[in-house]
Every structure is written in structure tokens, then in C-alpha cells.
């Protein structure tokens, strides 16, 4: 374990204790930050390690969220609903993986986005998803705390997975595929298999995240769940984290949520515009991702 890991672990453990001390406003903010981190790390499993940007990964987030919502509203226990939310996304990814895995990275990116939008339209039209009205729940007390700890657990798992991959031979193989797939193939690496599995694992975690989000938000509908802005935020953070893929998403999610929380309350209208300008400026000046100074 490196020194940075220990610091990180300490910080996370701190987070476990924090919620009991702070007021609901800060709790909500912290939860939002951890939620965004979960989204980012999940997407990064496929993006950082294999070079495939799933612009429409949120499709699985939404799908898992709906699965959870429908099950939970029909008296399925919380934990089981969450788990099934993740599993259903996993199955969905398994179904579409043969189609999507053949595509090159940028076509893949757009195809997943199309898929996400497609699911959004479907969700708005079907009854089971509540149409445009969505689904609302009655939640027990302390649901905010439960949501916070669930997100935190997810984040911890994702973080450990990311750290593990970064240092293991498995991760090395994946990086080789990302660098040069043809060469990887000619040294006996089954690139499609690795990609498919990463895709499914990403979907699984996104599904779980979706379930927890539903619980936290107490309400889900198509435009919230399949909102392209979620994809924008996620990939904005991942772009910033290009050169620091393991700790980057955590740091940038934090910065992002805090900063935009301040801006949002003061400049509601400018929120989107500033985000767009930030994206353009950042990619112009840091096309390889923002470099961490200590190297």
C-alpha cells in the first residue's frame, strides 16, 4: 500500500463517521459528491482501462434505477431490490454486448448514447415506468443516511477495484489493449472478452448506483434518470482525470459538486453555460487531462 492510499483510506473512514455530526444540507452535498464519484469510477472501468468511452453508460444507471423502483414499490426488501437492480443492468449489458462490442471506440460512444436516449423515450412512453410522471416512494426515516452509507460502500468497492486493477497484471493487459488492440491480439490477448467483461461490470455497478439514487431521491422519472447532463458531468470529470485515473475522479467530483453548488445557488441561469465553457477551455489547455503536479 502506498502512502497516498493510506491517506485516502483515512479520509474515507472519516466520511463514515461524518454524517452523524453534520446537518442535512452538507449531508446532501456530500452524498451528491459520492454519487458522482460512483458514476465516474464505474464508467472509468471501461474508459480508463480499455479506452472505450461509454457516453451512454447512464442507460444502465437508469435501467437499474427503474428496476429497483418497481421492485421496491412492490414490497421487495431494500437490499434485494438494489442487488436486482444491479443484476438486471448486468443482464441488459450482456444482451447488447455482442452488438456493441464490435464497434470502434467513437462509434461505440455514440451508439451507447443513442441507446440511453432510446431508453429515455421508452421510459416516457411505457406505463410500468410511470410514463412521464415517474415513480415515487414512501421512504422510511433516516433514508438519507441509508442512502449516504450505501453510496459510500459502493464508492469504496469501486475504489478498491480501481486500485487493484491499476496495479495488477489484469489491469496491465487491459492497458495494453487500450494502447494497441491489434498488437494485443497478435500476442494472444482476447481483447473482445476483456472489453465485454469490463462493460458488464460497469453496467452492474451503474445499476447498483441507480438503485441507491432512486432511494435517495425518493422519486424517479425518465428525464432525471436518463439525463444526458449526467453523462456530461461524468465525462467531464473523467477527461480531467485522464492523467490521474485512480484518485482523479474522487478529487474532481468533490471539487465539481462543491463549486457548482455554490455557483448554482448564485447563478442559476449560467450553470449550463459555465459548464460548457469550462469543458471547452479545459480540453483546449489540457488535452491529455489535468496533470497532477507531484509526479
Amino acid at each position, binding site marked *: 500500500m502506498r502512502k497516498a492510499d493510506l491517506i485516502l483510506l483515512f479520509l474515507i473512514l472519516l466520511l463514515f463517521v461524518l454524517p452523524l455530526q453534520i446537518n442535512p444540507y452538507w449531508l446532501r452535498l456530500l452524498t451528491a459528491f459520492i454519487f458522482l464519484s460512483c458514476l465516474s469510477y464505474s464508467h472509468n472501468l471501461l474508459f480508463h482501462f480499455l479506452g472505450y*468511452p461509454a457516453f451512454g453508460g447512464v442507460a444502465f444507471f437508469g435501467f437499474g434505477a427503474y428496476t429497483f423502483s418497481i421492485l421496491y414499490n412492490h414490497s421487495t426488501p431494500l437490499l434485494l431490490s438494489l442487488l436486482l437492480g444491479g443484476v438486471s443492468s448486468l443482464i441488459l449489458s450482456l444482451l447488447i454486448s455482442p*452488438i*456493441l462490442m*464490435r*464497434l*470502434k*471506440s*467513437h*462509434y461505440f*460512444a*455514440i*451508439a451507447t448514447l*443513442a*441507446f440511453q*436516449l*432510446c431508453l429515455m*423515450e*421508452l421510459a*416516457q*412512453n411505457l406505463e410500468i415506468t410511470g410514463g412521464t410522471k415517474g415513480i415515487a416512494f414512501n421512504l422510511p426515516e433516516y433514508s438519507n443516511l441509508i442512502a449516504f452509507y450505501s453510496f459510500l460502500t459502493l464508492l469504496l468497492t469501486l475504489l478498491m477495484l480501481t486500485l487493484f486493477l491499476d496495479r495488477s497484471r489484469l489491469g496491465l493487459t487491459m492497458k495494453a489493449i487500450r494502447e494497441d488492440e491489434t498488437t494485443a491480439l497478435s500476442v494472444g490477448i482476447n481483447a473482445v472478452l476483456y472489453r465485454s467483461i469490463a462493460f458488464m461490470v460497469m453496467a452492474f455497478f451503474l445499476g447498483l448506483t441507480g438503485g441507491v439514487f432512486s432511494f435517495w431521491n425518493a422519486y424517479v422519472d425518465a428525464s432525471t434518470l436518463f439525463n*444526458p447532463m449526467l453523462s*456530461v458531468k461524468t*465525462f467531464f470529470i473523467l*477527461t480531467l482525470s485522464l492523467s490521474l485515473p485512480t484518485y482523479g475522479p474522487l478529487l474532481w467530483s468533490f471539487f465539481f459538486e462543491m463549486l457548482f453548488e455554490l455557483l448554482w445557488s448564485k447563478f442559476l*441561469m*449560467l450553470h*449550463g*453555460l459555465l*459548464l*460548457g*465553457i*469550462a*469543458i*471547452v477551455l479545459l*480540453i*483546449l489547455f489540457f*488535452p*491529455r487531462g489535468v496533470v497532477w503536479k507531484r509526479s
Partner: protein
Amino acid sequence: MEIVFQLLLDALLLSGFYTVLSVGFSLMWGVTGIINLAYGSFIILGAYLSYMIYMAGFDVLLFLPLIFILGFLLGLFFQALFVNRLMGYEPFTILVLTFGFDVVITNLLNLIFKADIRSISLPFENFSLFIADLILPLNRLLVFFFSLISLFALYTFLRYSWTGRAIRAVSLDPVGAQLCGIKPKRVFMISTGIAIGLALFSGGFYAMLQGFTPFESGWLTIRAFLICVIAGLGSVSGLAFGSFILSLFEVFSGFYLGEDWKDVVSLMLLIAFLTIRPRGLFGIRYHEKG
């Protein structure tokens, strides 16, 4: 049975507009290898510009060429100042850039114009031609007519002018073109200029056909992308055919399945083509870049 003919006619009229819409996108993609995610927002920008001209009391149709020129200049700047800097990096980088621009332009327009639906009413809008029980709304007919003219102009330009040939040369073989003394960077600038010019230009048509808000850019980009995927890169006539296919699907699914399902069908069409025939039906060159 009657209704089928009407739907076919609607699709035909719509396809004229769709062709103009996708030609710019296809040009930019085919020459520079860039998939411009901000394309839709440029179209909307053109729509708002036309709207302002309309509100000021001028004849929009007269001003369309000016709008094209404005778009051309915008495109030149866009390519020179922003895109050219990022050409050497991974394709993802430029994708992010254009995506950022889409967000900026959309939100800028939203700030200025708010989210109310706007549209341009042409003086004869409520009139239609009636031919053998088929309805031809006059505004659609007009757009179709002007689309044809502009497409023909573009086609001639690409085919017979020196610049047009330079553009085609670069899209087919950048290295070879350089050996003939053509500067790719300059050609990129011109193609992007033409592409954005066309985007703004088709925005004018868009404003005439229906109401619009700043937030429709995503769908417009997707439609342009979809048509290019269906048609393949490299031929204007292929785009016309691809546009027709898309408009067919849209019109028929809109009628038989309901407006809500229209978009789902289009998206499934996109996914189908991306997986089964990414090269498109008429692709002269399967562009590996960008």
C-alpha cells in the same frame, strides 16, 4: 391506402430538408474526420438568426445566403482557433471539444431567447397545394425546392471547382493531396466553413418548418449522424437517399405508432446500422479517423 401516398409525399418533402441538414455534417466528417457534436446547435443558431431577421421585418429567404456566409466565417474560426489545435490528439479529445461547444451554444441561446417555442410564419403558410387529394403544404414545398437548389449548387461546386476538387482529394487521401501542393489545414478550414455555413443555412429552413427551442440541438445532431451512417460518407446523392429513408421511418412510425415512438424507432435504426453496416449503403470510403 390513400394515407400511404400522403405519408410518402410528406417523407419526400421532409427529406429535402434532411439532406441539406446532413450534407454539412457529412462534409466535415468526411474531410476532417471529425464528428461534430455541436452541429445541431449551429443549426439552432441559424434558426434563431433567421428568426431575428424575421422579427425585424425582413424577408428571410433573401437573407439566407448572408446567413450562410456568416456560418462560413464562424466555421473558419472554429476550425482555425479550436479544432486545428487538437488535431494531433486522440479522437475523443475533439469529441469533447465539440460537445463542450454544443453545451455553450445551447445555453447561450437559452439565456438570450429563453425556452419559449419560436418559429417563423411565412405569409402563405396556411395555404397548401392540393393535387389529386394529396396535401402539399406550401412552406414545406418551398423548403424542399430551395433545398434542391442549394444541394445542386453544392454538388456542382464540389465536382467542378478547384476548391471542391481539393476538398475531395483531401478526404480521399490527405498525404497524396499534400504531394500535389494542397494544404490540408487550409482545406479543413474551408470544409468546416462550408459545413457550418450549411448548418446555419439549414437552420433557416428549420425555423420555417416548425417551432424550435434551444434544446433541440442534440436530436438534430443525431439525425444528421444517422443519415450519414445510413448513407455512408462521400456522396451527396447517397445522403439524399439516406435522408429519404430516415424521413420515411419518421413519418410512418409517427403516424402508425404515435409521435412518442418516432424517436425510439429512429434510435433503433441508428443502432441497427451502426452494428450491421457501419460503412453505410453508399459509403465510398469508410472513414477510420475521428
